[in-house]
């Protein structure tokens, strides 16, 4: 059976007909994925890479992928991901600004992970930078999984929060650890009119402390300078 599947996959790839027939499903790798939909036509989904590899200021030029949309101002988009890291089950989701719901436990996380893995099964190959286009009425399209789906297994129903914003704006990224802990704001993604997506991390408390310390030092130095001049 495995040989038969391999043979089929190789044959389809060789003839470039993979999109016409059943494509080989990629296994979900725990990466963050960003999806775009106008709830009609085709949706675009892109693998941003692992959450742990995000850096503040990182950008993705998705202009060619998004060129099929007549205007980005009407596009719904968001970012989701899930990963079981040695028993710590993480979910990541953007929101339009509200704090998303916690994930109660393993069973709840498994539903969210199943939804994302089902979206990912339409990727031909797993990995950062991979993308797919899928009709917005497909059960595993971005539209059906995150906005309009009626199946309990789809992300919007399994998790209960819509990860999308609309148009050229920013989307807050939260990290949620299964087990009921409060979601943590990690940063935000912003989409501009060139189709470039930019991530900006929330400065960590130590960074705030360093800025505050530097500010106090500047004030102190300025005061000393004024005293000397006086």
């Amino acid at each position, binding site marked *: 059976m495995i040989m038969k599947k391999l043979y089929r996959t190789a044959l389809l790839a060789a003839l470039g007909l993979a999109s016409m027939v*059943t494509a080989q499903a990629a296994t979900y790798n725990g990466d963050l994925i960003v999806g775009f939909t106008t709830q009609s036509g085709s949706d675009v989904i892109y693998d941003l890479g692992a959450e742990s590899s995000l850096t503040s200021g990182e950008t993705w030029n998705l202009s060619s992928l998004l060129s099929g949309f007549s205007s980005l101002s009407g596009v719904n988009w968001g970012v989701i991901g899930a990963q079981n890291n040695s028993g710590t089950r993480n979910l990541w989701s953007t929101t339009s600004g509200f704090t998303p719901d916690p994930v109660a436990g393993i069973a709840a996380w498994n539903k969210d992970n199943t939804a994302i893995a089902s979206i990912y099964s339409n990727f031909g190959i797993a990995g950062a930078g991979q993308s797919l286009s899928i009709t917005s009425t497909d059960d595993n399209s971005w539209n059906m999984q995150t906005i309009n789906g009626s199946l309990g297994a789809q992300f919007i129903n399994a998790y209960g929060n819509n990860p999308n914003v609309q148009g050229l704006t920013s989307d807050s990224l939260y990290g949620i650890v299964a087990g009921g802990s409060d979601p943590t704001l990690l940063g935000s993604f912003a989409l501009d009119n060139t189709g470039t997506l930019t991530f900006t991390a929330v400065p960590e408390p130590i960074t705030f402390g360093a800025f505050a310390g530097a500010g106090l030092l500047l004030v102190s130095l300025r005061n000393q300078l004024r005293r000397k001049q006086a």
Partner: protein
Amino acid sequence: MKMSKSILAAILGLSMASLCNAGTVYMSGSTAMRGTVYSALINPGTVFTAAPAITLYQGGGSSANYMAFQGTLVGGSGTTTIKCHWSGSEGGILDVASNTVVTETFIADSLLDGTDHGTNVPSSTESANVNLAMADNAQQFSRTKNPTLSKKAKVGVITFKWVRNPGKWTGTNVTDSQIRQALYGYCPRAVFSGNSTDTSDFVYVSGRDNQSGTRVNALGISGYGIFTLPTQIEMNSSGVMQDLTGGGVYAGDYGFSSGGTLAGTLGADTTSATDPVNGGTGYSVIAYLGVGDATTAIGKGAVELAYDGVTFSPAAVIEGSYNFWDNEYIFEANNVASGSEADKAYGRLSLTTGINAFCDGTKAIKLTDMHCTRTGPTSDPSHN
């Protein structure tokens, strides 16, 4: 002179050979329907003019995964061979929709000896493009929606059952919600038993791979989603979960390629087996099967489950109260020539006197006996 005689003899011989050997028809698809198709193919006058010579491998009798039938087609001449490899409904639709690209394996000509070889696998196979396929679901519910197959016929209703193994859970009914929760891969037995203390062991689904129409219906009718990835396990006939990736992953989008093989594992007692997925000792397994394969599993120790409180019976299917069933289709590849041997076989099998007439009333039900209809696994039955 001698030379021209030889050439003439050779031409004559070749002509005779082509007259005697009318061709081969290749068929694949539903494992759940293979017994009914077998009955139609062996009955004199239905497809072949007389009882065909039958070669069988991997299963035995009407349960064989590889079949070959040799005889003269009704309306044909010479010997036609119909070779079948029951690869699953989704595999069948893919085979015929993409038959310029995809091939399936069949018993090699050298092994066609008119013998039932029981559970033996054929030692020699040939790869061929598929002409006809059986499927437990319409193409619109398939992974292979394109290209649209223009020649198709509804030939009966195929029925399915949920069963459980002799595991920790000892219930006799399963609901859609329980099925969905088990398919997510983390479902404590308490969800099935309703007992608050049953939280240290789990209920898993053992099922079919994504080439299966039984899987399309199990996932679709339960509301889980036909294309939602299931978390399934595979165990062997001793109740040991299998690590199919070799990386310590015992649950995932796994599944058997044959209902018969799945049925053979479900008699295993797992009350004391190690659970490598969620830990602990003892687990339970539920599984979806065609009714014929369910009978095999029950014979090995599995227990039949009522579905949403309704016990399977032909009458419950016919009236629409039992929900685990779908329409059975035969498809012809778009590039099959009109009047060819494959087209003739399709024509005979798709008549009401074809496959439909051999629905036994349990594993498959005649369309004319049904008092309700449905479009597919995502809709409810409608009583006439």
